């Protein structure tokens, strides 16, 4: 949860009169601006990280194109050709400027333009993630609310054990077990989701079932506990006690007082699920041979195709930061206390 109130009061205190008045009049606007500015700053730091990490070893790029058996002369030649002998700051500047213009360079491996390579992959990953999300959010809210209202009951215990067990099973293992049972043993679904090239995933729904199911099983275990925690906390709160003392019916207490407050953090849950999916889809795509961004990233990492790695990494990181900002802003809008407290 964003700590708007504390931060605001700390910085507002030290400002001269006019600015302080403006800030006090529009605390929300100030928060929005500040959150976007920190997000932009974060994006710059992330671009250093992405660029820097792939340049740790000198001559890395050239030797990854030419392979292990290249002569030092050949490596030096390719290094010069790619402009990799220039100062690192110049290289970074060129890279980030072309990135901002949408020019992602060419793949070391295939020579094709990176934007062409990752375009359809991005589309496929978004399809996969959205389908998973549409299932994950309502189901985890329903399970979380039911177990939260009957905390300590039999059903709560069942789901608590299920979550404890399932959280500890990696997605690639879940996916592999699903393939073993549903594809190999019972032939219900195809074992791999390899698509004809240039075909979007959405046109082959049967290939999407197992990857979506894998993500669903993986995320439910975690998310229903988040919702449950919010609901039990609300049910123990002062305002629920007050509502009960006022003689309101239990269903009214639950529906009018407890749940709306318990579900405000749902925005954060939504955001954390999307962020989890950004990482979770990587292994799942590899398991099913699904042609998405994650699989492309792992392929590029293993062949050290640096332009592809940089492009996909930047996109994933930017989406991650963007979702964080949007979720924080929506949460502040939903919870008046965070907005007005000075």
């Amino acid at each position: 949860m964003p700590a708007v109130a504390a931060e605001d009061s700390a910085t507002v205190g030290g400002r001269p009169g006019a600015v302080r008045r403006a800030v006090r009049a529009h605390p929300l606007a100030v928060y929005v601006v500040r959150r976007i500015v920190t997000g932009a700053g974060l994006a710059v730091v992330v671009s250093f990280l992405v660029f820097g990490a792939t340049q740790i070893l000198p001559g890395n790029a050239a030797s990854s194109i030419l392979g292990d058996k290249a002569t030092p002369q050949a490596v030096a030649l390719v290094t010069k050709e790619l402009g990799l002998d220039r100062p690192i700051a110049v290289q970074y500047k060129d890279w980030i400027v072309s990135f901002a213009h949408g020019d992602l360079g060419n793949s070391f491996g295939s020579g094709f333009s990176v934007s062409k390579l990752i375009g359809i992959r991005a589309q496929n990953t978004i399809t996969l993630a959205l389908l998973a999300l549409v299932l994950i959010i309502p189901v985890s809210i329903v399970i979380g609310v039911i177990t939260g209202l009957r905390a300590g009951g039999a059903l709560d215990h069942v789901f608590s054990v299920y979550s404890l067990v399932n959280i500890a099973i990696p997605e690639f293992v879940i996916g592999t077990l699903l393939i073993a049972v549903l594809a190999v043993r019972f032939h219900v679904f195809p074992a791999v989701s390899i698509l004809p090239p240039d075909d979007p995933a959405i046109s082959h729904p049967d290939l999407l079932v197992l990857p979506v199911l894998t993500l669903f099983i993986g995320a439910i275990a975690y998310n229903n506990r988040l919702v449950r925690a919010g609901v039990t906390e609300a049910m123990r709160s002062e305002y629920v006690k007050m509502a009960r003392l006022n003689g309101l019916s239990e269903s009214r207490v639950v529906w009018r007082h407890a749940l709306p407050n318990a579900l405000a953090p749902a925005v954060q849950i939504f955001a954390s699920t999307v962020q989890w999916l950004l990482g979770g889809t990587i292994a799942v795509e590899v398991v099913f041979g699904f042609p998405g961004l994650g699989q492309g990233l792992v392929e590029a990492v293993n062949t050290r195709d640096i332009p592809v790695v940089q492009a996909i990494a930047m996109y994933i990181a930017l989406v991650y930061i963007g979702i964080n900002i949007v979720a924080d802003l929506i949460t502040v809008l939903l919870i008046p206390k965070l907005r007005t407290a000075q």
Partner: protein
Amino acid sequence: MSASVSGRASGLLSRARPPLRAVRRELRSGEAAVGWIGLTAIVLLVIVGPAFAPAAPSDIVALPYATPGAGHLLGTDFIGRDVLSRVLNGGRSVVLLALAATVLAYLLGGTIGLVAGFVRGRTDGVLMRAVDVFLAFPHMLFILLLATGVGASWWVVVVGIGIIQSPQISRVFRAATLQLTGRGFVEAAVARGEATARILRREILPNIVTTFVADAGPRFTFSILTVAALNFLGVGLRPPAPDWAVMISENRPGLQVNVWGVIAPALLIAILAVSINLVGDAYARRRGISTDVDPAQP
């Protein structure tokens, strides 16, 4: 992070109790008992397993993907090596890499958290901003970038997991340290003019042991899962290492023929991680430390 340090006193006292009673208390919860049984079985398998392997993990004993039969109880893998022998040898890397990564994470995160919480002021501010930046970056991506830079190897996995876990740990340690710095015995040590490093080691650290142990279970589970995922993706240990995750990756094409090359290592990874989770959860629950999932956790 809602881990409280309310169980601190009981944590110190329990060390004086006879070990047998502590064990019995530990096993009273059904979940913890299941966890301990699973954990003991896997640890035994990892330690003594290699001695019982019928063949060397690299020996080719039959045709590829042979189904279970005499001489090879779990069949053979994609080039005809004995699956049972490889499974018995393949746990050591998972456990050791995860252990090393978790230790590194606590060394990094613990130090940052202790210093930030004790020194406070500007140092605290700078350290915690750095932590914020790291938390806003997708974890898996960081390790994949590292692997692109220096190539796939086991130490990329250890260093990468160590680094990505340290920000969360530093927050937990900082919170626990902050609660202690105002206490009498710490202020007395400060007044005596003791060195900061000594105060951290002698006064603060022993008093946050319970917080640390409750925190370590889920983190070790996370390390195991991430080590397995990275080895599976080909970023960590590479074939022909007899590693459970590597086995899953290389034997997948033969799932239809000999399912055990994939199922056996997959089940063992799952049992190991689930057992640690059950044990850790029971420990934290008994000491009244909230085990509610932390939204910021990956």
